């Protein structure tokens, strides 16, 4: 089995799986705790506009997707804060707008380029060294910022009103968080694609959520679930010849099902009929 690591494309695929599994599973903790799943889905679709623009202008599609996703994240944040609009409505407006621009850019291309659609479902075996460097840099930005603002994000997610009253700059923190989500989406495009990235943003963290009552432990378990999903999914996809994005998401979902079945929270609820008052963390 280790023979597959002799191939350069497989080494890059494995490394990209580790980067994607790590960034998605860590930012995913906030996606789950703050109920930002729709934001992740919206930004992933917005990335399509950036990818299409990249092909139209013959620049790196991932670089164009970074600009597009960050721009969309900024518009969502401004609209929801300044225009007194609910966050989900703001996401609905701007992700559809970004998708529409993507369709427009494809229409403006002089000749059909099927590679655009490769970003919809991802192809981890097609990751280049250049892709890998960009993914690594963006991944480090995401992980480093989470480390820097770990506690502040915790307070923001637990009780935003009190965090603001205590003096935390909640507006800026929320903007940084959605910006990190946008970067994570771009990191994942080549590996799992626009359609399936949502699963990696939610499923590993939701798996961890089943197993612990502790904030720090949720990051650890989510990271393990994310890495296992990406690496096992990659190996399975290579071994039986199925698309890598689909294999990764299927493994992640199976892990979630197993965690939900074994969850100590579920067992407690059976006994007491409601949430336990005892800490299991």
């Amino acid at each position, binding site marked *: 089995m280790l023979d597959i690591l002799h191939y350069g494309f497989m080494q890059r695929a494995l490394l990209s799986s580790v980067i994607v599994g790590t960034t998605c599973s860590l930012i995913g903790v906030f996606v789950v*705790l703050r109920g930002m799943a729709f934001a992740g889905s919206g930004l992933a679709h917005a990335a399509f506009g950036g990818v299409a623009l990249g092909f139209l202008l013959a620049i790196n599609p991932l670089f164009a997707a970074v600009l597009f996703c960050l721009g969309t994240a900024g518009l969502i944040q401004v609209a929801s804060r300044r225009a007194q609009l609910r966050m989900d409505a703001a996401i609905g407006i701007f992700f559809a707008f970004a998708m529409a621009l993507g369709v427009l850019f494809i229409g403006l291309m002089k000749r059909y380029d099927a590679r655009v659609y490769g970003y919809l479902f991802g192809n981890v075996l097609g990751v280049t060294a250049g892709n890998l460097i960009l993914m690594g840099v963006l991944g480090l930005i995401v992980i480093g910022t989470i*480390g*820097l*603002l770990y*506690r*502040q994000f*915790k*307070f923001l*997610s*637990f*009780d935003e*009103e*009190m*965090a*603001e*009253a*205590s*003096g*935390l700059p909640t507006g800026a923190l929320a903007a940084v968080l959605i910006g990190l989500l946008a970067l994570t989406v771009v990191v994942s495009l080549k590996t799992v694609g626009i359609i399936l990235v949502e699963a990696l943003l939610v499923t590993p963290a939701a798996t961890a*959520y089943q197993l*612990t*009552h*502790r*904030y720090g*432990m*949720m990051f650890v378990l989510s990271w393990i679930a994310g890495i296992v999903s990406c690496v096992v999914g990659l190996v399975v996809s290579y071994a039986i010849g199925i698309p890598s994005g689909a294999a990764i998401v299927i493994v992640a979902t199976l892990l979630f099902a197993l965690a939900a079945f074994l969850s100590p*929270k579920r067992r407690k609820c059976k006994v007491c009929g409601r*949430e*336990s*008052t*005892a*800490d299991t*963390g």
Partner: protein
Amino acid sequence: MTTENSVRFEHVTVAYHQAVGIEDVSFSVEPGEFLGIIGPNGSGKTTLLRVVLGLVAPVSGRVRVLGASGHDLRQVRSRIGYVPQRRPLDPQFPVSVREAVAMGLYPTLRAFRRPTADDRRRVEGVLAAVGLLDTADHVAGHLSGGQQQRLLIARALVQEPQILLLDEPTSAVDVATRSAIVELVRRLHADRKLTTLYVTHDVNEVLPCVDKVLYINRTVRAFGSCADILNRETLESLYGGRVVFAEEGGRRYVIVGDRHA
């Protein structure tokens, strides 16, 4: 502790969405005083606390808190403990009571800095002060209503504030728990010499401990010492109905009758 007023409002007016929240409000609280803020629902009590915190800017008038005013109000926010109206904490959020209390320290923590041993001692100290030390490792959202209220008080205290703001801290708890929380606040105020602003719509709640009373209904209807405000004539004019004083177990209670009686 500063020698000037802890909180001073001078003709403060606040507007939300083109509607007046509070209008021409003036009062002051000296260091270490306990101010009871009473008034009906929607009278601007919470707005007043949000102005003290610097979360809402007045459209006119002047606010000074611990010597700061205008944009500088944000600079003194870490010296103000705030206990909001209680909403049930998320029972599934993975955070312990100890962590939830320690969050009160986060605004003063630098990036990458972990709470120090001294910070942890402060957390233990306030948990003991509010009687939650035994439940420190429980999930915060699994506590009972009264315990969650104590948690919020502990979180406000952990930053060692000079001013403590409480916004109807007993609004969602039973009668026995209400008395326990009022007694806890009274004790903390006395032990720590905190300037305390306590918002409630039930005057009886703050009767045992207040130095001053502010009755607000959009604007200040009455402000003064307990003797000035908590007498039959003043209360009857404020409530618009008959007011009776009763004594039970050495405590005095205000009973407000039907305003149409």
